[in-house]
């Protein structure tokens, strides 16, 4: 592996607290760019694992070791030191860390990549045995023991982690009562048609009950301090042996309370990921931007944004000052068997200057939700369910501000479904034509990159 030799600061010690995707990406990129001494600290797990894959371990799809993207020898080979320990406090003046076992470590540059923890909203009984969130490896181990003799579980909070938890529990024959505060699934993010499709799909799975517009009032324990039942806001009593708290996550920054590092909900950072203290940076789930980036939230708790912040901070630390500057928004998820991808912005309700085109095939559970500018017809974003779309093509269309008509005409180039899958471009475009009075035709399929290049040149000219 080729490395730049930087004589002046080759022995600078970069310490990263947290070995999730953000911290690990930072470490890998710093190593590629420099010879600095790198230490990664974690109290959760010695080696990096994919947090998003924990569910598959519980369901028996994978072993825990399969969730680790790098073999143990990788870290030694790349000269990245690994320390298992819990940092109690940071002495920024002496530039040292204090561990819970009273040991210390000094640093030259410190990156905080400490992630999140499940939200708790002060519910009565939220600290009983059998009540838990799902975020860390320890949460997974706890879930394993909490579901030993579990017949019914209540999940509080209808977001992505809630769905995952529901899917996990159903594979263990546990009935799930899913409390969702809104009147539809993931209503804070998805438009109504999209929510309805996800709900319809979830209902196909036996043992799952969706309870909309219902919230947790109180968790009641038995004499041993273990959950026995809950009471909902609507006054209903549900017997259960597990309560899953999945109403979002918040930055895991309690240990910074007494420090001089400025925090709000998360660690406050500037656009270059620096905190108010020199040589301390924060990235990933725990960072809160003082000025949000475009339409993004000030705290981004997504795998991809964590990775990008890691890539960015590594540049800065290795001498090329760089601001966090992500491209077009994208994300993806899977709701049981229903795959979802999104490119660009699709808000839960249309904005004033936006128009939409929704195509769906209810029987096959397919839905494409395009949002575009009402006047210019420039594409703003797409949600797709059940049909895979090509990231590169949509990213390109967003960059060149392609119109919805151009997008639909070349939609074949954006299809990413496996070979032989049924294609729907013709049906989609004819539905658009009848809704919007246009006479568009789908362009004949060719190699997707050729289509992409053609479009670029057309717009250049």
């Amino acid at each position, binding site marked *: 592996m080729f490395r730049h030799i930087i004589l002046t600061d080759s022995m600078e010690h970069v310490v990263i607290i947290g070995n999730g995707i953000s911290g690990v990406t930072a470490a890998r990129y710093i190593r590629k760019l420099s010879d600095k001494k790198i230490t990664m600290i974690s109290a959760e797990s010695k080696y990096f694992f994919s947090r998003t894959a924990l569910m598959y371990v519980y369901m028996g799809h994978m072993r825990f070791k399969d969730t680790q993207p790098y073999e143990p020898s990788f870290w030694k080979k790349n000269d990245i030191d690994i320390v298992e320990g819990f940092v109690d406090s940071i002495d920024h003046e002496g530039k040292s860390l204090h561990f819970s076992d009273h040991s210390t470590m000094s640093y030259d540059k410190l990156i905080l990549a400490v992630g999140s923890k499940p939200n708790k909203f002060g519910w009565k009984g939220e600290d009983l045995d059998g009540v838990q969130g799902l975020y860390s490896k320890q949460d997974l181990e706890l879930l394993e023991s909490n579901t030993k003799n579990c017949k019914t579980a209540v999940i509080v909070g209808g977001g992505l982690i809630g769905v995952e938890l529901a899917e996990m529990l159903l594979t263990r024959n546990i009935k799930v009562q899913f409390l969702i505060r809104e009147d539809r699934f993931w209503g804070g993010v998805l438009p109504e048609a999209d929510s309805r499709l996800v709900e319809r799909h979830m209902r196909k799975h036996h043992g799952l009950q969706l309870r909309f517009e219902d919230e947790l009032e109180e968790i009641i324990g038995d004499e041993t301090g273990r959950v026995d039942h809950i009471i909902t806001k609507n006054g209903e009593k549900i017997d259960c042996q597990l309560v899953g708290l999945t109403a979002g996550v918040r930055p895991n920054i309690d240990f910074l309370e007494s420090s001089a590092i400025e925090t709000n909900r998360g660690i406050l950072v500037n656009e270059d990921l620096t905190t108010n203290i020199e040589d301390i940076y924060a990235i990933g789930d725990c960072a809160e931007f003082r000025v949000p980036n475009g339409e993004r939230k000030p705290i981004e708790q997504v795998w991809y944004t964590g*990775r990008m912040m890691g890539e960015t901070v590594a540049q800065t630390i290795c001498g090329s000052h760089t601001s966090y500057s992500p491209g077009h928004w994208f994300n993806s998820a899977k709701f049981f068997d229903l795959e979802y*991808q999104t490119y660009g912005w699709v808000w839960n309700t249309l904005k004033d200057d936006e128009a939409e085109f929704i195509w769906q095939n209810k029987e096959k559970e397919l839905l494409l939700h395009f949002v575009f500018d009402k006047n210019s017809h420039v594409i703003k974003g797409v949600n797709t369910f059940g049909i895979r779309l090509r990231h590169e093509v949509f990213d390109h269309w967003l960059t060149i501000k392609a119109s919805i008509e151009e997008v639909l005409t070349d939609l074949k180039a954006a299809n990413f479904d496996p070979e032989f899958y049924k294609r729907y471009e013709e049906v989609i475009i004819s539905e658009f034509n009848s809704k919007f009075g246009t006479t568009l035709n789908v362009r004949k399929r060719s190699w997707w990159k050729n289509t992409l290049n053609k479009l670029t040149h057309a717009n250049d000219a």
Partner: protein
Amino acid sequence: MQTMLNQSISGDTTSLNAQQKISAGLGICGLLILLLATFNIEFSPLWLWLTVSLLSMAIGIIWYTKATYNGHPAGIKNNGVFFRSLSARGLIGYSVGVFLTGFYIILYFYPHLLGLNKGAENDGVIALFDPLSKTLSGNSASQWFVYGTLYTVAILFFGIKFIYKYRHSRYHIIRTISVMFFQLGFAFLIPEFMAALNGDLPYYDWKNMWPLNYYFFDQYNVNGMLNGGTIGAIMLTFGIASIFVISPVLTFFFGKRWYCSWVCGCGGLAETAGDSFRQLSDNSTLAWKIERWLIHTVVVFITISTVAVIHSYLGTDTSEYWLTKSSFLWMVAGILTLVFGWVMIFKRDKLQKDAQYGAIGFFVVIIALLMIHLSAETEHVFLIEKKTLRKQYGFAIGSIFAGVIGTGFYPILGNRVWCRFGCPMAAILGFQQKLFSRFRITTNGGQCISCGNCSTYCEMGIDVRAYAQKGQNIVRSSCVGCGVCSSVCPRGVLKLENGPVQERVDENPIIIGHDNQPRLNK
């Protein structure tokens, strides 16, 4: 708005449900009949008991499929795979491994224990298959007929299981129908019918080409084809065209998957009966290293032994036959030099360092060997007698590796042990796939979340995630294009596709979605 659906019969995946247990038991009963027949328990009438046995297995598999996947919406259902003894290398897994291994050892080396009596009436389990064999070809059954029948039954009914399990994917449905078709038609029925029509023709599976079919160039086989009239001549021509024309062309357009996971019988069994074991394929870098050395050694071995075999029966007089010992050796040396030269000049950068060393080493060995033959008539190759070289290949590779380890070890090393570590055909097709093919697995921009489903369920032990998380396409010689990585991916990241050769590999892509990120040097 509330809905409550009934509890399904099979929600809990840590243990088998009642129907799964009964159906598995039924299948085992079918197997038990064969086992009892092996120990010469009298079954009469034979055809009835054979039907009962095969039907029990078939119904057992289909019922088990229903009990496992029915009532669940279509989609990836790998629930409990690592909790079950059979699929997670537990006691049952090892027991099945020992049983299968034992079966292969008896099949290859002690067929009389199965009831094969040369020159006399069969008894034991082979006699049980006599009625079926006589119906198809008019001959009594052999151990290979018994094996071929069971093999075909396994591919057909586990194929149905596979199709139902992956019923949401047309790619899997079509490709599985393809392997079922090729096994039933090409490997099982057509050779039997051909034997019925013309008893002089050697057994010929049209889709099984050299070097997988390592006896293709054996003297008896070549003579059989040469003496087999028009059909024999077509066989010989087709066999040679398969190696030099058909397979390179198809591999160029579609990758080696056209063979390995669409046509091949070994692949067919791995994809169907072996599907429950794909997660056991080791995906460490050490396994990859062993794989590269082992499989290419096998290629060299089969090449040398085949050359030696052909050399041994060719004459020296050009007036008798155009191809002589020495012109044959010059021809082989010429072809190898051309391939080697082309790779080293045009494709060197595509090969890993040790692959380059390996290629040089192997090339030197083969050339040196040929030179020895040209300069002096000798009966030995590497101190081993020429005649025994091919026999030893048949024993070590054809029987022990492909059969005993390749299939017997499914529950221990995964379902593609043979394809991955031993198959010379896979090595040759893979070599081409890596250097000269339109096939690749495309990574969908920046969508990978490193979850590892792809790497876990890759039967060839490819660490797919290592590429996907960097935004790289996957172009690996060992990939058989089964498409399961793409299916198990929860984020729609992987797509098998054929496209322009030039754009296949981007070693150092920008991960899409982070446009301003400078590229790193490798």
